[in-house]
Structure formats: C-alpha cells, structure tokens
C-alpha cells in the first residue's frame, strides 16, 4: 500500500509502453462497445417506429395503459443512480475508494429498486393478459396491433432489464475493488468503464421511457 492509502496499480501489460496508453486503450474499447450496444437497441427502435406507423391507435391506447407513475419513478431512480456513479468515478479518480464504494453500492441499490418496480409492472401485465403475440388477451385495447405493442414493450424493456442486471454486476465488481482500495489517480479505468456502461443503460431508458410511456 502506498503512502496515500491506495494499492499499487496492477503491473502494466507487457505490450503497452505507458500507463496512459493502456488507459486510453481501455477507454476507447469501452466506447466502441457502447457503440455496438446503441446499435443493438437501434434495431428495436426501428421496429417501434415501423409498428407505430402501422398501428398508431393501439400504440396510443397501450401507452396510456402503462403506469406513468411507476415509469416516472423508475426514470428518477435510474437518473439518480447515474449521478451517484458519476460521483463514484470522481472519487475513485482522486483515490477516495471508500466514498466511491458507498456511492457505487447506492447505485446498485437503485438498480435493484428499478428491477423491483419493473417486476411489479410485469406482474400486472401478466394478470391482465397484456402479453405479446399469441398470449395476448387484453380486452382494453380495442384497436388492432395490441399484441405487437407488447412484443415491442416486453422485448425492449426485457433486453434493457438484462442490461441493468449486467450493469449491477459490473458495479458490484468495481465496488468490491474500491473496498480493497485498488484505485488511484493513475489507475481508475475499471470504475470509469463500469460507469460508462451504467450511463448507457440509463441512456437507453431515457429513450424507452418517453416512447413507451409518454407519446
């Protein structure tokens, strides 16, 4: 442990010349990966817009039927968790590993809250029969295209929830490393990358929320 209270950074991989170059590579790799994630969701959004033009009425009806309160609460949770992640990044960058740990755990807790609320919403849908494709048996949507809306709804929010779970695991992993005081002003790329991933999860929701709940 160094005098400042953090562990020595792990040795530089043999094929890098400088630590800056290594950090830049990690960061750049993460940004590229986030690019692929954006394109993954882009396909869903294309599907959403196509079917919305086919079935504007049922999309409107189904959208109104989603719980605006729960959706907004979830948006609030995710946005706040993004803030705590950003603060954790800032703390880790300055070697304040303990602060970073608590902030990351707070984010994980908010992620868990998000998932619980999502589960409540899903349960309600299952009881109503507001389900995709052949399982659809929801009487309140009269216009055609209801089953398709719920394919889009469940597929997009399900894929997003999967990303929330992956993001929570990543945050937990870097949080344990914070607990062990591994990060320092010269080495904090894992916190930064996990944070970037969490911001992406947040960003996707920022697009899903208005499209599904508000429009």
């Amino acid at each position: 442990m160094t005098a400042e209270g953090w562990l020595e950074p792990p040795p530089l991989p043999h094929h890098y010349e400088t630590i800056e170059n290594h950090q830049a590579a990690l960061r750049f790799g993460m940004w590229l990966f986030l690019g692929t994630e954006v394109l993954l969701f882009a396909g869903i959004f294309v599907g959403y817009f196509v079917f919305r033009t086919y079935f504007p009425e049922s999309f409107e009806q189904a959208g109104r039927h989603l719980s605006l309160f729960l959706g907004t609460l979830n948006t609030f949770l995710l946005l706040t968790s993004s803030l705590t992640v950003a603060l954790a990044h800032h703390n880790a960058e300055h070697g304040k590993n303990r602060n970073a740990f608590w902030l990351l755990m707070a984010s994980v807790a908010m992620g868990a809250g998000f998932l619980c609320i999502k589960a409540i919403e899903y349960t309600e849908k299952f009881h109503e029969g507001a389900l995709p494709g052949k399982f659809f048996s929801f009487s309140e949507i009269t216009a055609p295209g209801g089953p398709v809306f719920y394919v889009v709804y469940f597929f997009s929010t399900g894929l997003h929830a999967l990303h929330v779970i992956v993001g929570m695991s990543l945050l937990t992993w870097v949080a344990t490393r914070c607990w062990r005081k591994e990060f320092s002003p010269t080495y904090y790329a894992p916190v930064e990358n996990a944070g970037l991933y969490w911001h992406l999860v947040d960003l996707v929701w920022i697009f899903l929320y208005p499209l599904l709940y508000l429009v």
Partner: protein
Amino acid sequence: MNELMRRLLFLPEQASTFAHDVDNLHYFVITVTMVSSLAVGLTAIAFFWKYRRRHENQATPFVAPTALFEVLAISVPLFFFLVWFAIGFRDFVKLSSPPPEAMDVYVQGKQWMWKFAYPEGPNSIGVLHVPANRPVRLLITSRDVIHSVFVPAFRVKMDALPGRYTETWFTATKPGRYQILCTEYCGAQHSKMWGEVVVMAPEVFDEWIKEQQRGLVTRQDVLADETSQVTQQGSLAQWGKHVAVAQGCMRCHNVDSREPATGPSWVDLYQQHTKLADGREIIADEAYLTESMMEPNVKVVAGYQEVMPNYQGKLSGPEAAAIVEFIKSLRSDRTVQAVGGEE
C-alpha cells in the same frame, strides 16, 4: 444478333414486351463486363510476361499513379454504371407502373401451388390464361409464407407476401405455354411449385373466358381435387355458394345484405376488423374464416351466441376453401357481379 446473344447466354425465349428491354440492357452490360474482365486479365498477363523477374534482388522503380489516372479510374466505371442504372431504373419504373387499362388477375401462392382468380370469371389452380398483346396486371399475395412468381420467358418476377398485395404486370407477345416458377424458398416442395401461363390470341381468350363463365355450373363436379395440378375450370366462389346452400349456411348468415342474423352477415366480412366476445380483435382473413367453420366456438364474434355447429369432418378442405372464396366475393359494392350464375 439478338437471337445469337440470347442463345449464347442461355436466356429463355422473349415472350413479353418487357423481355426485349431487359435483354437489350443485359447484352450491353454483359458485353462490357466480358470486355473489361478480359482487358484486366490480359493486361495482367501482358505485364507478367513483360515484367517477369529476371534475377534475384532485382530492383524496381517507384511508380505512382498520376492524377489523370485516378480521375479516369473513378470516372470511367462510374460513367458506365450510371448509364446502366439510368436505363435499368427507367425500365423498372415502367414495370412498377401497370397501365390503367390492364386486365387484373389475382394470384395467390400457398404451399405449394399457385391459384389464379379473375375478378369476374373463373378461378384456376396452376394455370394462368392470359390474352396476348394486352397488358395483364397480377395482384399477388400469399396465404402462408413468402413465395415469388417468376415467369422466365417474360423476365418478370414479384414476391408473394402474406398479409399484403404486391403487383406487377406484363404484356405477353407470343401465344404459347410458359413455365411459372416459385423463386422464394418456401419449404419442402419449393422446387415443385410450378405453374403455367397459357398465352392465347386475344380473340381466343375472349372466347375462352365466355366459355368458362357459361360452363361454370355444369362443370362444378370436376372441381373436387383442389390439390391437383389440373386446370380448374370454373369459379371457386360459385362452387362455394353451392356448398354453402347445401350445408344450410344461409339459414344463419345473410349473403345479400349486411344485416346480422343468427350469425354475422357474410357481406364485406372478408378482411373486416372484427371484435370477438373475449375482447380480442381479429381480421377476418382466410385463416379465421376457415377456423370458424372447423372450430366455430374458439373465436366467437362479440354479440353472438355460441350456437354454430362444428363443420370439422363435414366439409373437405377444398369445400372450405371454396366457401372462403365465396365469402371473399361478397362485397357490397359488387355482390351481384361476383356471384354471377344461377342458384
């Protein structure tokens, strides 16, 4: 020249106006392709011969392209490509815009057969009769997966998509028989999903269609096997009407007005958005209509009782299809024409 090129390239005979346009462009494109591939190949061989390695450690001068070379390398191919594009696009626009006077034929693909229906005439399986020298528009759909209508001799092809209609058209030029092939992979019998276009001289065609309309009633008994590749002479809708009468469908379903009776009216029923008793909404397509005959109580229309008997086993597949065709022909805008014949 045309004949020589056509045979060299193994192209089928040219039996539509479109075939000539396509083939002329084809010759142009393929000639340039051959000449340029050959030119590239020969240049490479010539360079190889001239600049073969004469001794180990041979040095070579540094050569870079001039600006003129770069400009030519881009503009010459681009010029040819754009010319082809312009001609090809003009022809494609022509192919996508059927003339208003074109005769309509409905084409339906299903695994694995083609069905052709003339709006006011007979239906047929596998064989499409068309007049020569008159534009014919095909309105194409599919009942299950994607198929594609392809008449090589006409150089015409269009996908048959379930749930929507696509269109294409042609003017056949030579009386004769031409093969129809399915070109979108559709399952085990894809390679056997063949049909035939019979192009007739216009007068002969007019005779034929009159004959068909006259002979509808008398020939219904030969319609039994829908799956045969034999020409179906006569209207399926007409036959469907007879089946419906025989089964007593009209006791509960109106066919001459949209008034509901014990059951919903059949007029305008096809493709109608229908609300069911359990709240779902469906479109009354072929699948639903068939299901309603075979398992009537699965999807009961809102406002009606579950009283309809089950026709599973009472109706053969072709009979059910005929009734569906009959229902499809019942449209309030032209009910009378479509059902044409006598009771």
